[in-house]
């Protein structure tokens, strides 16, 4: 770890100004930044502590939306009755993330900006091997070596990493928006548009390995807005090797509106299969109007999974992702 300057702004305006300075990095809960500092993933000159900014941990209802301040912790969201009532999938996703201790510190603003758990990426400096995220241009060892837990969608030869967040997958399935602020002012984006799969970064002319989001360096997440969907039922399912304190092999967030036995609308996002939450758009388009059955759902989800491009070690994830999605959809309906 290398020395850095530390600043704690009193208000958002001051925070925005400090964050915009070159070499600045934001700290809130600190659960992820500390890892980066220790591993040498980042070496900031200034750390801007926004963790105590006022009024940014709110959770509430506003004009048909559930609103979340960026500093709300995963446990606060997970245990909040309003979240449980209107966005069950998000509460479940928060409580299945990390460990109780981490969830008490980790904020919903920082959580979506955590980086991949790929072991090649997470090695301590000096970097002992290639990694296009850590040392651009060196290559991606996971592409052909240890890739059991890597992407089945959206990857390129440059990088096959997945995004590990749980809450992000739920927010994507809920069609939430993320609110950003910078010296240029505020803007709002769909959460699903915040992150880039490697193929998408490449398509717009960016480095597929390092361009992981559309955030500008001077931008800061201030909160989220989740549209309330009348009668919607939702569920989050996380599959991992051990039952707590483990990143997922695959997750699924499902939000379903039913009309009797018939699916009225459905949104499903898979997690840990790509560098962003992966919406199952074919299933979302084809299922409404159909009577609900596990077979119908499986068939529709399979159609999306037919597009998967597994790597040498993760063919199992295609099947796992399908089954996880089907289970999450059925669990949402039964909730």
């Amino acid at each position, binding site marked *: 770890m290398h020395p850095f300057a530390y600043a704690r702004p009193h208000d958002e305006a001051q925070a925005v100004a400090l964050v915009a300075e070159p070499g600045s990095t934001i700290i809130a809960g600190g659960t992820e930044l500390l890892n980066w500092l220790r591993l040498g993933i980042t070496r900031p000159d200034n750390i801007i502590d926004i963790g105590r900014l006022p009024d940014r941990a709110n959770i509430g209802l506003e004009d048909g939306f559930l609103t979340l301040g960026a500093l709300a912790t995963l446990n606060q969201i997970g245990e909040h009755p309003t979240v449980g009532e209107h966005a069950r999938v998000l509460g479940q996703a928060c409580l299945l993330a990390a460990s109780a201790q981490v969830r008490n510190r980790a904020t919903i603003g920082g959580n979506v900006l955590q980086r991949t758990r790929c072991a090649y990426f997470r090695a*301590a400096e*000096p970097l002992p091997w290639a990694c296009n995220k850590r040392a651009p241009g060196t290559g991606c060892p996971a592409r052909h070596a240890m890739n059991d837990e890597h992407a089945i969608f959206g990857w390129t030869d440059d990088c096959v990493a997945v995004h590990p967040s749980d809450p992000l997958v739920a927010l994507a399935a809920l069609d939430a928006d993320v609110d950003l602020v910078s010296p240029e002012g505020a803007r709002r984006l769909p959460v699903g548009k915040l992150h880039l799969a490697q193929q998408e970064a490449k398509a717009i002319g960016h480095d597929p390995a390092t361009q992981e989001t559309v955030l500008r360096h001077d931008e800061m997440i201030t909160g989220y807005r989740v549209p309330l969907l009348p009668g919607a039922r939702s569920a989050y399912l996380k599959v991992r090797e051990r039952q707590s304190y*483990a990143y997922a092999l695959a997750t699924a967030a499902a939000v379903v509106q039913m009309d009797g036995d018939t699916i009225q609308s459905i949104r499903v996002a898979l997690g840990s299969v790509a560098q962003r939450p992966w919406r199952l758009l074919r299933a979302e388009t084809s299922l409404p109007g159909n009577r609900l059955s596990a077979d119908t759902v499986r068939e529709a989800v399979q159609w999306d999974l037919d597009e998967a491009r597994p790597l040498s070690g993760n063919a199992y994830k295609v099947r796992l992702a399908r089954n996880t999605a089907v289970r999450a959809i059925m669990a949402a309906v039964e909730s």
Partner: protein
Amino acid sequence: MTAPTEGRAIGAPRPRIEGPLKVTGAARYSADNAPPDALHATLVGAPVCQGRIVDVDASAALAVEGVVRILTWHDLPTFGPVPPWQAAVLNLPMQSDRIQHEGEPVAIVLATDIQAAEQARTMVTVRCAPTPPVLPGQGRRNLITASEEVDESGLVEGERGAPFRIGDVDAALASSAVRVSETWIQPSRHHNFIETSGTVARWDGDLLTVWDSAQASFIVPNVIAAALQLDPGNIRVIAPHVGGGFGGKGWVWPHQILAAAAARIVDRPVKLHLGRADQYTSTGFQPLLDQFLELGATEDGRLTALRHQVSNITSMTEVYVEAATEVKDLYACPAIDVSQSVEPVTVNLPTPMRTTNEGCGLWPLESAMNELAHRLGVDPIEIRLRNHADREPTTGRAWSTKHLREAYEEGARLFGWYSRPRGGRSEGNWRIGTGMASSTMGQIRFPGNATVVLQRDGDVVVRVDIQDIGTGLQTLLAQVAAEELGTSVEAVRVEWGDSDLPSTGPMYAGSGTVANTSAVALACRDIRKQLGEHSDTDDVLDALRQTDLPQITGDGRYELPNRVPMDMYGGDSGYAIRSFGAVFAEVAVDPELGIMRMRRMVGVYDCGRVMNARTARSQMIGSLVWAWGKSALERSELDPTTARWMSKNLSSVHIPVNADISDLITIAFIDEPDPYASVTGARAMGEIGATGADAAIAEAVFDAIGVRFRELPITPKRILDALAEMGR
């Protein structure tokens, strides 16, 4: 089954006497010691898995504020030869430009604070001329041939991995009615203890004080003294608590020598505490094991042949044999042929780990017994009873005591084995299956020494240089002293963890219980004997008060038969000595998601007299937790390009968490004393619970979903891939 007798000290479920120290944070571990003026050390590890150092550029690192010195191999003295079976690594690092494995120390950063030492170590540039890696499967397997002699240190495990043969296995297999012939694999695994290893070294003239984390502190002076060419009598080791050892702190590792050497070079105390990532390459691990095992049997399931060929990886420059063939004495069998080989690859040196030997060997043997039972349609318990070894098969010796039959019976009763549904059942999305296996652990014994002081005020002090490796041994010693002297356990104070105390054996595989409960009992009897010369009362305190002595001191020396420095499996006692058990598992598998869950487990163990019902139970629960980790989670993977351990942290290297462990774990003991194993009737328990349990769990998975896994761990990927291959 006998319950601890009311009012008796031995066997009672006493809480640990060091418990309050630990839960209040008052227990001092090695890294809690920082002598004034101490420098903090960090190690710069070799960036490649083998080759030569071209040069080490420390200029940028030396510019970091607080950095005092950076040592390379040019700065270190030439070490003297270190004793095998005490020093883990014989080819010590930092003696030349040679790199023997990734992470091997190539430089030591010394700084006034740990932050500077950590920062600077990332700024040391090591330029190397690398040699390509040799990965598992690419090395040459070398057969272990000669049996090694017990040397005067007494720590050589005599027959470790030596080939053994009786009968004609080829002929027996050829004529057997049934044959199981398969290969079982288990991955490399690290100890992953909470307290990483660390050493604080301080010189006062020629005297060296070492605060250490060690399972056998008495060997630390021998190794450091040999390396630095000193008198071991000039070295004091303070090592009371060990925050997890599991074998990984059993021998002396290079960092312990380097800390002392660095402190001498800079003439200041040095604190060298390994970081979490350092731990994966600075001490050992349990090696990847490939085991071919064949059983031949008659139509009614009686074994006619056992062939067991074990291969484990080792480092390029040294041999570690994981003696998995030591399970050859579990079943009666007329023809046995076992052999071991090692495959040198470019990794650090492996070492014993929870559970060594039988913990590794029972994975194939008990799996094969279950396959044999299934093939013949015989109950898994029944097939084990039909092959019960009434005497030790390889020697014909009688067992000291053996209650394995009772363990099967009691385990079956507690589990409800005979009323279980066969072939699994469904519960929602889950398939539920059951399995069982035998457990066994050979006895490795060492002599023990203890002093017991009875004071006039009734207080008793037990003095012995044991280490607290978390098993609760100090409490056992207090219980033994209380029972022998007829005092209360509360009146006994135990002093431990300092080489100024009477030196005793190591804390290996439960051997500390055998040696030290015996030595304490003998020391108490020495007190009684001395007092008997003065008085005829049975009450030791009354007897003492009848003298004018302020206190009386008893010495206890526990000797092995023929006064050997170490013995195995009974040695010259005339009997075969071994602990036994039976383990039962109920497991749930979700075939769509590939996940599995521990539903419940039962373990019944025959480990001689139980010294403390509470710590014994805890030890066995912990062992089953490890077994679950081995079965479902744990593996340390090597990157195929660099031969570097992939992940070096507890976030990505999974060991079980509480949520993985069912609260339906039932532990029971046969609790019959073994008069030949120790003075107190105790036998080593060690981590016997982690032997055989993997095979029971894998059998339960087979029962649930019909897939035989012969490679651990049984992960979601493996379950889903196996089911896909079967078209399910």
